[in-house]
């Protein structure tokens, strides 16, 4: 080639002119000078490498130089395109192409960089990726070594979340029957969150305002960025081993989706789900539901809301106890009143009963008296008859009972007189 390529001064392709023999000796070639010089010395001191058959470049050298130049010319950058031919290789690396309507480039994600990507992209997914342009020397193929990747929109996060949710569901951790009730009045609330964030401060101020007798224990953990999931898991495990808390709040203040990502880590969700005490998730984000929200016994929208759930309001509880006291007193009073009423009623009934009985008895006594009276000889005497008895008291009821001269007693209605028979027994 004799024509200068990349004539424009700002063209990133300019270093490619390296192999343009016409400019080979010009002072414009500064990249990568030392390698160049070495190559010249090693091979053919007087000739520019590749400028003549005698100093032809080995392909490995060519690819090596090309890679050096490409890597030097491009800083890591974000690119966008559609994923195709995605393959997760057994060695842990991901291989795929990024393409648009007319072009494509091979891409690789090394396994060590995969942890920073929330989920494997699917073919057809529109993504933005941050990568370093390089050459795969074995094939002379240009490729992007990608270290960060996200779907355009939230596709990838949704996918990661769906996968993790399926995982947890399969473990039975999303079963609504697992949800436990919070204690009405905890003694100690443990809070796993950042020591520096506003979340802990918010929780403490709400608890102090509502019910200051509840103690709050901070178990600090990094809640965003690399290593955050492991720290949160560690902090939850610490609370569990300690065993002094009867409620556990795990959370952080609001943030962007990436900042909340630790709370979507299945390891964190699992640790929270297996905590022996009731749990509250407090990840400050109204829109997204995190995995921690799903497995916690109670989901609160913010740390302050979590604190409101965790402890009762002292004033409310006092009012409730007072209401209990009042109700109890009222019901006892009513009970005592009803007992008295009943006693009075019983007394009245008894009284009535006795009176009725008395009257019945009196009536009966009168009846008896009347009957007795009717049967009594006195009654007969009252009608004008008299009873005659001899001195022995025997009733003299026949005329023959009266021999002449017999003394006898004659009983009349109002007394007895002495008498003597003066005939011979015949009237």
């Amino acid at each position, binding site marked *: 080639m004799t024509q200068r390529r990349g004539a424009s001064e700002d063209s990133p392709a300019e270093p490619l002119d390296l192999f343009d023999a016409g400019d080979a000796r010009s002072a414009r070639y500064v990249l990568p000078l030392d390698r160049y010089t070495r190559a010249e010395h090693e091979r053919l001191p007087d000739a520019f490498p590749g400028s003549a058959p005698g100093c032809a470049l080995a392909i490995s050298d060519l690819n090596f130089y090309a890679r050096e130049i490409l890597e030097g010319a491009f800083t890591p950058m974000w690119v966008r395109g559609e994923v195709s031919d995605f393959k997760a290789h057994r060695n842990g690396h991901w291989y795929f192409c990024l393409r648009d309507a007319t072009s494509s480039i091979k891409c690789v994600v090394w396994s060590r960089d995969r942890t920073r990507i929330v989920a494997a992209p699917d073919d057809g997914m529109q993504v933005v990726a941050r990568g370093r342009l390089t050459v795969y020397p074995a094939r002379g193929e240009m490729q992007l070594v990608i270290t960060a990747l996200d779907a355009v929109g939230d596709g990838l996060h949704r996918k990661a979340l769906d996968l993790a949710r399926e995982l947890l569901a399969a473990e039975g951790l999303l079963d609504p029957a697992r949800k436990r009730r919070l*204690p*009405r009045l905890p003694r100690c609330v443990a809070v796993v969150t950042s020591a520096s964030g506003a979340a802990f*401060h918010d929780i403490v101020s709400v608890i102090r305002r509502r019910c200051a007798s509840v*103690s709050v*224990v901070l178990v600090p953990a990094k809640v965003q960025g690399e290593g955050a999931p492991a720290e949160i898991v560690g902090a939850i495990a610490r609370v569990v081993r300690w065993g002094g808390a009867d409620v556990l709040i795990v959370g952080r203040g609001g943030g962007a989706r990436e900042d909340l990502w630790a709370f979507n880590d299945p390891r964190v969700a699992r640790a929270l789900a297996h905590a022996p005490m009731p749990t509250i998730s407090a990840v400050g984000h109204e829109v997204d539901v995190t995995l921690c929200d799903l497995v916690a016994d109670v989901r609160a929208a913010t740390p302050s809301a979590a604190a409101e759930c965790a402890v009762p309001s002292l004033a409310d509880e006092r009012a409730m106890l007072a209401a209990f006291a009042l109700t*109890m007193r009222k019901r*006892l009073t009513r009970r005592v009143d009803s007992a008295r009423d009943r006693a009075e009623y019983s007394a009245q009934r008894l009284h009535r009963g006795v009176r009725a009985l008395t009257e019945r008895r009196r009536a009966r006594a009168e009846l008896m008296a009347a009957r007795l009276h009717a049967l009594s000889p006195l009654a007969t005497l009252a009608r004008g008859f008299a009873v005659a008895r001899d001195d022995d008291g025997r009733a003299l009821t026949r005329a023959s009972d009266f021999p002449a001269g017999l003394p006898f007693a004659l009983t009349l209605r109002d007394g007895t007189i002495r008498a003597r028979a003066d005939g011979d027994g015949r009237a």
Partner: protein
Amino acid sequence: MSERTYEQELARLEQIVTDLERNDLELDRALALFEEGVARLRGASAALERAEAQVKLLTETGDGRFIVSDHGD
């Protein structure tokens, strides 16, 4: 943990209040329930009115001991 939690006291109180409303309740029994209710109220109130607690920081030493220290907040 106290022997009876606040929650248990409340649950018993609810039961007592319900029982007190029963018409067939013996008066002696009602009085006994009321007395117990007063004791339960006292217990619940004591749990509620415990002294103000401190804000603490939980740390674990290398040998697995736990230190709960005051946390200035």
